[in-house]
């Protein structure tokens, strides 16, 4: 399968099953339509007729290059990956979202977690539950060394003492069990102080700093419980954390809604404020809400992603250090094909644990008891649900079978699929279209930066 598109003056051919990316001239861009999985060395006669505005010699020259790519396995490579779909069926659990707090000091309008409480009582995780969760992860991660634990909520800083004790507990187990814990934290920043900044910068492999960009954009969607925006409170705290973080990973993470489809301005604003690792996500919300993204917004969103890609090319060529999460793509290596079949591997290698110790396939399923997998306190763990997710690959998502992007998005977010379509196997087209546009921009940027 070949995906071809033109963007920003570049004609791009993505050979889906080899991962090869070719930048081609106008003639070759048209000529590739006359090639197939069983192409031969001879230029098809129909090509001369259809491309009569070019000379035969030039067409032959271009076709010969296409045939060379075919011979190298970089054009019309076969789809040969379904045979690997059963690998990882019995994979160990090795990642955990630890919902350390089901409470929040903000009341963000778009919060998927019902403003921190996940639709239930507001509560904090006890030290006992957190330690049991770590024990569960160590026990279930047979054969794995690298383990990921993300402190999440709600607002994790509301329960920071337990965060610290959990890290200390896990670190003390690393050598004994041959594990390497990588901790991450997602915070709204309100409770950051020098002590917390020092601890986060020492212990957190990555940290996600939630801020939506321009003051008026942020404060419209991210008020406290009294209705007051948080921009002025969190910005200096995040700046201090990042200034002291050195080379360690972080993301200033924004959400865009229908209210700010000019979200490039928020990315550039955050860059001006000193953040160079940036992420901006489309809101995930009930389509009936005013701020929810609608299908009719897609052309405007595509335009914005393209403008952002062009701006980032210009900035990078000028030597500026700026990184946009969704335009990161490693065309030479990246994850192996096995990982790409499942992506995040929620419910199989990845679970979420609530303050009461309940286990869910991921943080997005928390609060829906139909998906409860067990509890770390009583040691229960439903392997049938794990198997259901283990079998969820791009090969049993019908809509993904013919999609060129499937080795990059891995079939989309299972939780979003369930929320929108009631089925983890049915991707939500609106998200698919945005993902495909981001990928096209990301690949085009690689072409432009290689010039």
């Amino acid at each position: 399968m070949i995906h071809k598109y033109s963007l920003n003056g570049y004609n791009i051919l993505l050979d889906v099953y080899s991962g090869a990316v070719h930048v081609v001239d106008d003639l070759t861009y048209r000529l590739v339509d006359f090639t197939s999985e069983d192409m031969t060395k001879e230029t098809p006669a129909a090509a001369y007729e259809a491309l009569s505005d070019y000379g035969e010699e030039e067409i032959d020259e271009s076709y010969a290059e296409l045939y060379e790519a075919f011979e190298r396995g970089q054009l019309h490579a076969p789809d040969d990956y379904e045979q690997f779909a059963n690998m990882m069926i019995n994979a160990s659990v090795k990642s955990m979202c630890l919902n350390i707090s089901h409470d929040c000091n903000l009341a963000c309008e778009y919060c998927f977690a019902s403003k921190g409480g996940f639709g239930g009582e507001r509560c904090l995780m006890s030290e006992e539950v957190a330690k049991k969760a770590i024990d569960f992860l160590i026990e279930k991660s047979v054969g794995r060394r690298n383990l990921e634990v993300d402190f999440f909520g709600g607002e994790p800083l509301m329960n920071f003492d337990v965060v610290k004790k959990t890290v200390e507990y896990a670190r003390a187990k690393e050598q004994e069990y041959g594990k390497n814990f990588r901790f991450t934290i997602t915070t709204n920043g309100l409770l950051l102080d020098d002590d917390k900044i020092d601890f986060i910068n020492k212990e957190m492999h990555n940290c996600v700093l939630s801020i939506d960009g321009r003051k008026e954009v942020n404060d419209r969607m991210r008020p406290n419980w009294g209705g007051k925006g948080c921009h002025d409170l969190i910005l200096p705290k995040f700046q201090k954390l990042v200034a002291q973080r050195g080379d360690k990973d972080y993301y200033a993470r924004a959400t865009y809604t229908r209210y700010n489809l000019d979200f490039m301005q928020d990315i550039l604003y955050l860059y001006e404020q000193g953040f160079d690792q940036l992420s901006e996500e489309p809101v995930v919300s009930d389509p009936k809400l005013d701020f929810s993204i609608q299908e009719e917004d897609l052309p405007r969103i595509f335009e914005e992603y393209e403008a952002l890609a062009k701006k980032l090319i210009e900035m990078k060529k000028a030597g500026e250090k700026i990184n946009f999460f969704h335009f990161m793509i490693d065309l030479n290596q990246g994850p192996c094909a096995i990982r790409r079949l499942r992506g995040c591997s929620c419910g199989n290698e990845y679970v979420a644990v609530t303050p009461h110790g309940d286990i869910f396939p991921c943080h997005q399923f928390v609060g829906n008891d139909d998906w409860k997998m067990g509890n770390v306190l009583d040691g229960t763990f439903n392997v049938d649900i794990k198997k259901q997710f283990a079998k969820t690959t791009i090969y049993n998502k019908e809509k993904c079978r013919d999609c060129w992007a499937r080795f990059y998005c891995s079939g989309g977010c299972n939780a979003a699929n369930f929320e929108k379509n009631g089925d983890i196997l049915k991707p939500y087209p609106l998200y698919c279209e945005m993902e495909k546009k981001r990928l096209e921009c990301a690949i085009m940027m690689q072409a432009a930066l290689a010039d």
Partner: protein
Amino acid sequence: MEKHIKTLNKANLKETAVKGGCGECQASCTVAQKCK
């Protein structure tokens, strides 16, 4: 010297299927992620 096509990468997805699957990379919340 190729005149009409510039190939940007030496990707070989099939090779990663055969050699990959060690399971040590980040499994948690696109994967387009670092590998071994």
